[in-house]
């Protein structure tokens, strides 16, 4: 369980996150949705400590991450897997070296064990056989998937995914969603997924946080999102002209 309490964050004099509190539950896929630029990535980066919040607390299973020393933070981070919005694969390493990187760093696995684990993770994201390619030789969606494979390689306790589906076709998207849901439940991870994709929200959104202009605007489940009468969230969900016709009327 990851708990954030009263997080505030400004860049310069622009307030980006405004007093957001939420509990991300273990064994569930917790989803953060909101318009582009609403502050989702910023919240995620505050949670993992890449941005220091102006005020507020982040706790990992009771460990007060925000107040911890750099050393203690490193220990928590060894249990974190993160998929960045831009992938952030290491350019100088091949796909398989990227995925093996956390294993090289933090485990004493033999080469065979590592290979096995790498191939398993790559198969999970439908990238089998692409082991020897460099990130520059991958398409945008393939980079995302390779980065996801790296994020889950070392069986993290906490998994953060910043838009795992952007740049993917609907079919591959579903595969990735299913994968995230499956490993979250099977391994009892605490998973936080940022997405724009309403398909994913409905597929795997067991607990949803809707961010509107940096505020915690609405929380609920994927079923509740269909029945809410919150104006902003309805605008978000039923954005297109086509969907507006399906929008439930009050």
């Amino acid at each position, binding site marked *: 369980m990851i708990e954030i309490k009263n997080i505030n964050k400004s860049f310069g004099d622009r307030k980006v996150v405004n007093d957001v509190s939420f509990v991300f539950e273990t064994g569930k896929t917790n989803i953060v949705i909101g318009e582009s630029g609403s502050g989702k990535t910023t919240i995620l980066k505050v949670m993992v400590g890449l941005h220091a919040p102006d005020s507020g607390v982040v706790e990992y299973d009771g460990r007060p991450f925000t107040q911890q020393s750099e050393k203690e933070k490193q220990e*928590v981070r060894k249990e974190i897997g993160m998929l960045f919005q831009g992938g952030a694969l290491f350019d100088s390493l091949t796909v398989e070296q990227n995925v093996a990187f956390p294993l090289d760093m933090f485990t004493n696995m033999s080469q065979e064990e590592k290979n096995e684990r790498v191939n398993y993770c790559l198969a999970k994201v439908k990238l089998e056989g692409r082991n020897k390619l460099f990130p520059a030789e991958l398409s945008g969606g393939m980079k995302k998937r390779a980065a996801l494979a790296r994020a889950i390689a070392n069986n993290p306790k906490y998994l953060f995914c910043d838009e795992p589906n952007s740049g993917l076709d609907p079919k591959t998207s579903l595969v990735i969603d299913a994968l995230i849901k499956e490993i979250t439940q099977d391994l009892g991870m605490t998973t936080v997924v940022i997405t724009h994709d309403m398909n994913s929200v409905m597929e795997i959104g067991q607990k949803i946080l809707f961010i509107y202009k940096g505020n915690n605007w609405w929380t609920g489940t994927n079923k509740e999102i269909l029945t809410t009468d919150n104006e902003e969230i309805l605008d978000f969900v039923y954005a297109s002209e086509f969907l507006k016709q399906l929008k439930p009327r009050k």
Partner: protein
Amino acid sequence: MLLKRVFGKPEKFSMYYKQILYEIDSLGIGSLWLIAIISVFMGGVITIQSAYNFTSPFIPLYAVGLGTRESIVLEFSPTIVSLILAGKVGSNIASEIGTMRISEQIDALEIMGINSAGYLILPKVVAAMFINPFLITISMFLGVLGGYIMGVASGACTSYEYIFGIQSFFIPFNIYYSLTKTVIFAFIITSVSAYHGYYTTGGALEVGKASTRSVVYNSILILVANLVITQLMLV
């Protein structure tokens, strides 16, 4: 601040060791050809110019060989070659680390619980401080050889005089002085450019600026350090 993190305790020694070997190859061996060519030509030019200037009958011609050796060992190889490396290796390091910064690769390392400064910078510093003295020694040798080839070929001096010249009044301490300079310059080149790369913010444009800035700072620092070390060791 950054230095403290650079020299923090590594997460896993074998990974650092692997990186150091990789950097020795890329920073050191990768510069070998450039250094070889420059050294041979500069050695040749120094010889011809010395011979051209030593027209007085009171100066024996073996002074050409002696002068060439001293110029190369004391100044050209350690300082000028380091300045050239500051351009090549320095801009390379700054843009590599800068790109990793703006594409969130450094954040990705941090998230894994890795001391990114240590992992990215320490191997480069260690590799350069280790390999540069070898590069500079090779440069000295090739510079003197280049002087011989061109001096004799251009008729500036005879083979016997040149060889006699480069063997006379040899002071081993000078080599020690040069290699000390080299090691310090290697530290400056790698740490200064890594610093500029590491603190890049923004986009590709800023990476370019960081790389330019690192070459400028490197060159100035090397020249200042050169003066200081020379004052301390030779005077």
